């Protein structure tokens, strides 16, 4: 039942916010904050109670809810949680709190509708992480699109309409391709077993010829690769991230991209291991290209938000690489990267957003020497930039290091290419710090340093990154059982496929 609460609190909170905002905007903000905090506490409680997570000996999922929806068509309202989903849900609620706080003073128009969209997009994302019925998954996948569209289109910056429409069309097209694949899988499963079902655990054993599997997998893959984003499907991302409000950027970078990674982990490889194996050379090379390309483009930007946006392309390239390398080290690294990137990039967007609120520009040329006037904000930015370029001791480093190790076992060439990407990341990280914060204060900015509210947001993020960097065991312990199960399922499927080969 707790899974229903996760989503229900957000949905109800959103409506409550909308109604409350008719009388008072602060009340609306507090409701939104309360809803996200309540969910966060609930998810932490679930984590603590189910720790240490050991799925293999126990039941299939930590918690689940399974209701009939349209039983005739084999559709169930089936939510379930394992270690992987749990971590991502905790991250979702944490960044939910961050984004509510980050928009506390930024959003002044349409406050109620803003928070309605904010909480509903969080609900959609939670649904994506929890759904194990493919129909429900698609339902949630499409559902998170609309509030996100509004968040960009109404409260974004200058070119918001263009960015929002581009975002919508990219995800809509790729999502529909996934719908075709889901239905194809459903029909193939039906013709093999005579049972109509969208249930993940039943579809996972569907056997099909390799060439069919490749086509069906591609539908899923493209949907997730667009969200991730993988080069060459990334062009929506810089626009959307740059034009969205701070909260929108935090959610996009911290969570929405992660749904792509989650989909690859949860669906693409376990459902189609043979096809994924066949596809892995292409995917890993594209991932390596993305890592370097993202870093180089980030270096070329002068708009701070755009810079941070391109770093996402680079970091998520690591995740894609890890997923298609598919060994223990790489997958552990992928998970750490997913979480650490969510935190560090989220924090960078909060800081850049804060900066924009103060000086009304995101152009680096209009900055310089800000360290003199806002040392604490600059210090925090430095910290997160260092995290982002992979400074040892912080979360991103652990993730990328594990991925490089795992990749090295499979292909030295790819590992070298990815390492070059790490190198390139130092360039943009240092440029960011140098151009914006160091040097002399040529524009004579006199600004207010971090507000208490901003400190409340930033401080826990620093702590989490340090925790992930120094002692990631609890996170990995939660993830590993779920990961082993995914690996096992994929291996079993793959063996079945190999046996079928002449």
């Amino acid at each position: 039942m707790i899974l229903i609460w996760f989503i229900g609190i957000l949905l109800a909170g959103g409506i409550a916010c909308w109604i409350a905002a008719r009388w008072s905007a602060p009340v609306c903000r507090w409701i939104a904050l309360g809803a996200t905090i309540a969910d966060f506490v609930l998810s932490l409680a679930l984590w603590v109670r189910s720790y240490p997570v050991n799925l293999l000996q126990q039941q299939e999922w930590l918690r689940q809810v399974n209701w009939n929806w349209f039983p005739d068509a084999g559709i169930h309202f089936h939510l379930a949680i394992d270690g992987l989903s749990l971590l991502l849900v905790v991250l979702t609620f944490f960044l939910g709190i961050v984004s509510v706080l980050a928009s506390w003073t930024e959003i002044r128009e349409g406050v109620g509708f803003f928070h309605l969209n904010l909480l509903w997009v969080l609900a959609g994302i939670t649904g994506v992480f929890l759904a194990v019925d493919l129909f429900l998954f698609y339902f949630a996948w499409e559902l998170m699109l609309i509030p996100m569209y509004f968040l960009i289109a109404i409260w974004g910056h200058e070119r918001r309409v263009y960015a929002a429409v581009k975002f919508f069309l990219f995800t809509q097209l790729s999502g529909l391709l996934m719908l075709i694949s889901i239905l194809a899988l459903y029909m193939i499963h039906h013709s093999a077993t005579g049972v109509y079902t969208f249930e993940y655990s039943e579809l996972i054993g569907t056997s099909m010829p390799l060439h069919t599997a490749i086509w069906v997998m591609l539908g899923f893959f493209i949907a997730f690769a667009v969200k991730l984003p993988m080069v060459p499907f990334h062009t929506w991302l810089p626009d959307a991230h740059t034009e969205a409000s701070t909260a929108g950027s935090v959610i996009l970078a911290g969570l929405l991209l992660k749904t792509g990674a989650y989909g690859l982990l949860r669906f693409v490889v376990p459902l189609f291991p043979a096809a994924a194996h066949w596809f892995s050379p292409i995917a890993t090379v594209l991932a390596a290209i993305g890592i370097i390309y993202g870093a180089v483009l980030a270096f070329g930007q002068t708009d701070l938000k755009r810079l941070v946006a391109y770093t996402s392309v680079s970091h998520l390239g690591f995740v894609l690489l890890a997923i298609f390398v598919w060994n223990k080290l790489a997958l552990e690294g992928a998970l750490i990267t997913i979480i650490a990137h969510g935190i560090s990039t989220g924090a960078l967007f909060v800081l850049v957003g804060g900066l924009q609120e103060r000086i009304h520009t995101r152009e680096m040329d209009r900055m310089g020497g800000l360290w003199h006037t806002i040392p604490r904000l600059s210090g925090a930015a430095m910290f997160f930039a260092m995290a982002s370029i992979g400074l040892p001791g912080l979360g991103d480093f652990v993730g990328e290091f594990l991925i490089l190790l795992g990749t090295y076992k499979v292909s030295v060439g790819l590992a070298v290419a990815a390492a070059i990407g790490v190198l390139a990341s130092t360039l943009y990280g240092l440029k960011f710090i140098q151009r914006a914060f160091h040097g002399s204060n040529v524009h004579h900015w006199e600004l207010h340093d971090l507000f208490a509210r901003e400190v409340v947001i930033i401080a826990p993020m620093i702590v989490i990154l340090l925790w992930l960097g120094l002692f990631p065991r609890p996170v990995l312990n939660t993830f590993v059982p779920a990961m082993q199960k995914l690996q096992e399922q994929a291996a079993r499927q793959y063996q079945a496929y190999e046996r079928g080969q002449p």
Partner: protein
Amino acid sequence: MTTAGLIAILPLLLLSGTAVGLMLIISIHRSHRIALGLTLLGLAAAFGSLWISAEIVPQRVTSLLMIDQYALFYFGMVIAATIAVVGLAYGYLEQQAVEKEEFYILLLTAALGAAVLAASSHFVSFFLGLEVLSISLYALNAYIYPRKTALEAGIKYLVLAAASAAFLLFGMALIYAAVGTMEFGHMAELMMESAGPNRTLLLPGLAMIITGIAFKLALVPFHMWTPDVYQGAPPPVAAFIATVSKGGMFALLLRYFYRLELHNYGPVVVVFTIIAIASMLGSNLLALLQSNVKRILAYSSIAHMGYALVAFIASGELAVQAVTFYLVAYFVTIIGAFGVVTVLSNSEEDAESLEAYRGLFWRRPALAGVMTAMLLSLTGIPVTAGFIGKFYVVAAGASSSAWALIIILVVSSVIGAFYYLRVIFALYAGAPEDRGAEAAPRMALGSSVLVVLTVLLIWLGVYPAPLLHVIRAALPG
């Protein structure tokens, strides 16, 4: 005709009776309210009588009509949609400087024509139903006659519909010459015989009938009239043409097509495939150029007929269910969308330019919310009926491996998303501060129709199981 036969066609009798009664009452005393009340009463009675008829179906009523669960289901759709249109039209007509009462007579006869189409099993009833429908629509289109655009719509519809009816008649004649019968069941038997009918006559005949049908369904390349007529006609009438008129024709098409097993008939399938592809891509591309909401909705309705055709061509076990569900979802959505247009219109002009919708959300959030829901349903986003409809259509296509059609459906629906988003964006654009006092009069009845439609839209989108159950019971296979 037996008593059972009379009971079976009770809904049709009630519709005609109401139309006649209304005409008599108008000749004694003109009152918009009484006309409205009587119309709604008659429609409600006709709707209620569906359950009486359901007791004794299937029932063949002369050789012209076949009243079965399927026909009754479509009767229900036609009548319910007409009720919604009447509800919307009342407030709209109140503002117009024309005689109002005859509008309802015409609407009733048009609904009667559509219902006859849904039940027809004979070329004669096919043509009669079509003409009853069309002739009522000529007048309805031009109902607000002081407006030039309305006259243009009426004339355009008159000329083109008459031409297409001529095609249809010619096609029927050719087929009659080939097989020697006008009754669908008998025709099916003859066509299945080993010798087969004379194909040199049959094929041109089918082609002409398809032309006539495609005109009524506004499929590309027989769609030219649609944007102009939708733009000129009063919005409730546009909603009626887009739904009831097309729904009745689609019901007939499904019945005729499957009865004659035309899906095994290569050339016909090819023709429909081309028409479907052209409708999906053509309409969505043309709609990109529009900035008039009525025209956008017109192109959208063309596209949606194309989507429905995908399931229809796929003709797997899911096809009829999928098409029928799709039509229900489409009915709700299109009437809802035109409903918003209706409610926003005033005596001078209809709310058709995109400008009229700019920032609507900040002035009338409920109305903008309804419009958003309808547009999202047209896009096929979850929680709306359109999503389940699209899902069903793609599923029907997938079940018979019509991948090429599905891919085109996907691509064109993404193109479609673009212009729906433009309208949605307009709804939310503008600074929230300028909450000016709303000048437009509020239409209580129309607004409550919109509320019902929105609830229905979301209900069908979240829990379609009951409706699917009804559809499955009504439709064999």
